[in-house]
């Protein structure tokens, strides 16, 4: 299978024949992922939808450099990914905020890590606190925030580092339905804002079909373990998107198509 074509301009991340195997507790080797080929374009928002345990989070962990591929290659701008790096920001499902740092401290962690001077760190912190609507909570600790506020803080922490690629692992899955929909809108706003200065690429892992359709430029539907590409769907809705997109007949037709693919028994 050849590399999947991108919608946008030049490719940012390219994975070829990527696989991941794990050792199970009994010592046998379990195929978790692939082989899978995929490309994320510069400025493209790619969502991956698949059943639980299909290896979509494994794919993200490999792209983040947290885990090594068992075979195949994955590259960013032609360089092999083998370790985490600040050009690839990660947003985790369980937020992974530093509990000993305030909201401001968490958001400033990345800029300070990459060596920005204190005044620039502070400027970025202020900028992002405003963008994710956390004014007034700068000095609160994560345990004092609601789930929605925590994820907004985690998003700001990631974007304050101005990464080229955003890797998001079911970032809204732990939230209640109402907060989830609200944060989808905010995510789009923030995405537009963050992409203004230079285009960013996103890899968005989710099992929520409507979320993928609402947020992404392109969706890859993955099969059961070991995860492979079942189908690639280009999302036709223009940006900036408004909430009304969710009511379009085309939205429901695509959602139905993906649902059928996922429901199909794989064995």
């Amino acid at each position, binding site marked *: 299978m050849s590399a999947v074509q991108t919608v946008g301009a030049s490719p940012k991340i390219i994975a070829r024949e990527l696989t991941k195997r794990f050792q199970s507790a009994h010592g046998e080797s379990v195929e978790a992922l692939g082989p899978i080929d995929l490309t994320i374009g510069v400025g493209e928002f790619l969502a991956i939808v698949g059943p639980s345990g299909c290896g979509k989070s494994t794919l993200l962990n490999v792209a983040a450099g947290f885990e090594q591929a068992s075979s195949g290659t994955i590259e960013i701008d032609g360089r092999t990914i083998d370790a985490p*790096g600040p050009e690839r920001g*990660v947003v985790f499902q369980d937020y992974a*905020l530093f509990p*000993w740092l305030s909201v401001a401290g968490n958001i400033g*962690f990345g800029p300070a890590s*990459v060596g920005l001077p204190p005044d620039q760190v502070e400027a970025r912190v202020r900028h992002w606190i405003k963008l994710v609507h956390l004014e007034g909570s700068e000095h609160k600790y994560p345990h004092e925030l609601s789930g929605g506020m925590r994820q907004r803080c985690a998003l700001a*922490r990631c974007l304050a580092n101005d990464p080229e690629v955003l890797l998001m692992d079911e970032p809204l899955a732990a939230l209640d339905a109402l907060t989830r929909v609200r944060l989808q809108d905010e995510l789009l706003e923030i995405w537009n804002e963050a992409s203004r200065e230079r285009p960013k690429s996103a890899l968005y892992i989710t099992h929520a079909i409507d979320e993928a359709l609402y947020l992404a430029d392109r969706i890859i539907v993955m099969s059961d373990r070991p995860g492979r590409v079942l189908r690639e769907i280009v999302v036709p809705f223009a940006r900036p998107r408004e909430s009304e997109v969710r009511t379009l007949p085309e939205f429901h037709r695509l959602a139905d198509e993906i649902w059928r693919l996922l429901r199909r028994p794989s064995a």
Partner: protein
Amino acid sequence: MMRAADSRARELGWRLMLPMLLLVVWYVATDILNLTHPVILPSPTGVVRAFMRLASSGELLNNIGASLLRIFYANCAALLLGVPLGLAMGLYKPVERLCDGLLSLFRPIPPLAWVPLSILWLGIGTLSVVFITFLAAFFAVLVNTIAGAQAVDKQLVRAAQSLGAGQRRLMVRVILPSVAPAIFTGFRVAIGVSWMSIVAAELIAAPSGLGYMIMYYREVLRTDAIIVGMLTIGVIGLAMDFGTRWLERRLLPWRTGFHL
């Protein structure tokens, strides 16, 4: 506000009820009914008189000072050695494999079993007592630091790495704050076991300190002074536990969410 103050007063009342009851029973049994000989059990008023005598002569304060200084030395050494070794063992498997066997062999040995060797090697005096107290405190700090280091949230480490933190920043800004609560727990346990082993060590291996004082007055059959020594240890131990709790709240304010 009133209700909160009321319930706090009531809680304090509950906490003080048994100590007060014990004091009354003690007073009635000794001072009123004269049930015991003062060598077996002196009366509370007798203990207060002994306290005044020991306090005004400076003897009590000198012995408190001697014991506290030894506890200070022993716990400084325990933290300086226990924290780095605990972090290394908790974070790096090879270090754990290397050290675990030896430490597991020494850990079950009660600090007091070291008294004879300690006297042979270091003589009778502060050095011996500090060494024995250090052993007790060291293992408390070490075991808790290892447990804390092994429980560091992998996601936090990953988050820091993908935000661009290097090894040094990862250690200082992520690992250390993650392990800090466990180190603190170890420190509190260490202070507690310090008191147990220091008094026992001073009974045998020192010419000063609260343990020595208690031993000395046993030999001269001054039970009232023995009880003064014991109660002093209780009060100081209580104060130090409060102190470390307070310090923990100050240094680790993000943990206040877990305190009720």
